[in-house]
């Protein structure tokens, strides 16, 4: 069972970096600005999933699964808090991912706007042709 879990976890990590590699290829090698933006969003999503993986914990015991970092009662006793802390996953990566997603959304909107303006002014989103333009 443990070997299977290790295999699955390693596959997850490898697929994340494989995904990052494909999106980096998209950012570097594709000439279209729109495709660069799409690849950039895939790259940032991959980084976010990696951050979530960093905050994960294995099952504390075979009966207890990890739970989201949310206390389900507004008036917890000491036992509630102790049980919560023994089961909940790390909340800090989730908070970082939350901010990263919002910044990513805003930056993507800005980039889309920039690309639209480039297209309006030059009639193309191909960086090779934009780079050759003079004046």
């Amino acid at each position, binding site marked *: 069972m*443990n070997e299977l*879990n*290790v295999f699955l*976890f*390693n596959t997850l*990590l*490898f697929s994340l*970096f*494989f995904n*990052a*590699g494909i999106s*980096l*290829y998209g950012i*570097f*090698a594709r000439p279209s600005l729109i495709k660069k933006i799409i690849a950039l969003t895939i790259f940032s999503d991959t980084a976010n999933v990696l951050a979530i*993986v*960093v*905050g*994960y*914990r*294995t*099952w*504390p*015991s075979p009966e207890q699964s990890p739970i*989201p*970092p*949310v*206390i*389900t*009662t*507004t008036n*917890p006793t*000491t036992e509630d*808090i*102790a049980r*919560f*802390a023994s089961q*909940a*996953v*790390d*909340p*800090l990566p*989730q*908070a970082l991912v*939350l*901010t990263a*997603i*919002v*910044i990513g*959304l*805003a930056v993507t*909107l*800005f980039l*889309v*706007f*920039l690309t*639209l*303006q480039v297209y*309006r*002014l030059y009639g193309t989103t191909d960086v090779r042709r934009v780079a050759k333009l003079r004046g």
Partner: protein
Amino acid sequence: MRIKKLLVLSSLIILVLTFSLAFTKGALGYYPLPLPGVRTLAYWYLITTLNPRYPSFTAMSPEAVTAIVWDYRGLDTLFETAVFFLAIVGALALARGISLKKALDNANNKDNGKGLSLICKTATRLLTPLIIAVSASIALHGHLTPGGGFQGGSAAAVAPLLILVIFSVYFLLSKGVAEKPMLVLRTAGLIGIYLTALAAVLIGLVTGLNAYVFQNQPKLDAPVGIPAQVSNALISGTLFFFNLSEYLAVASGFTLVFMLLSIPEEIVRSFISGEAHE
């Protein structure tokens, strides 16, 4: 050209393999599986997030993520909000001189026959209030359940986006959702965030007690705090107000950018060429 392609490909393959090897062999600090416990910092966050036994450390919010975002690491979020709004300001600056109002006036754009079919329009009419209600619930319960101002605001911005696609930007304008009101709402949200961040300091100035910027609950050397409960309902001090302000700011900011993105091409071209001639 061929060598360049090979170079890119091989460097990417090396990158992927190196990182995968490093991370599967313990670069995350554990090997081979995640530990059954959490890091000490995470444990500290988890036991203090809603714990009346530690009155000077707790954030009084059952949602540990929101507690970190707006209390423990609140300054980070403040500057992150600044980045977010700088991006929107940048988009607005790129669209300077393009007035939606003028575009609405000068052409025969008041035609309401624009947009997709009647089925789409009716479905949108039914869905839009639901989207707004759900997004408000996400934002206002942000200190209790997963969610918060950012998520609620982004969800709320879907409603004007749907209207933009299914009706037209002129329909949205005729309903009063224009640049100016959105800018006012966004500014109101930002002012709300800054006032909430300074709330404890303002109370401290009035009462003469010690207080910090971004303070939520009373601390040992700063007895000023925002009440965690209002008539037995948990509002987690400043977190509720942060979420509310952020909701307004994010929703209106995104709506503004979506509207600017959806201005018809010929109108933008006329503005751009007009600029060139002047």
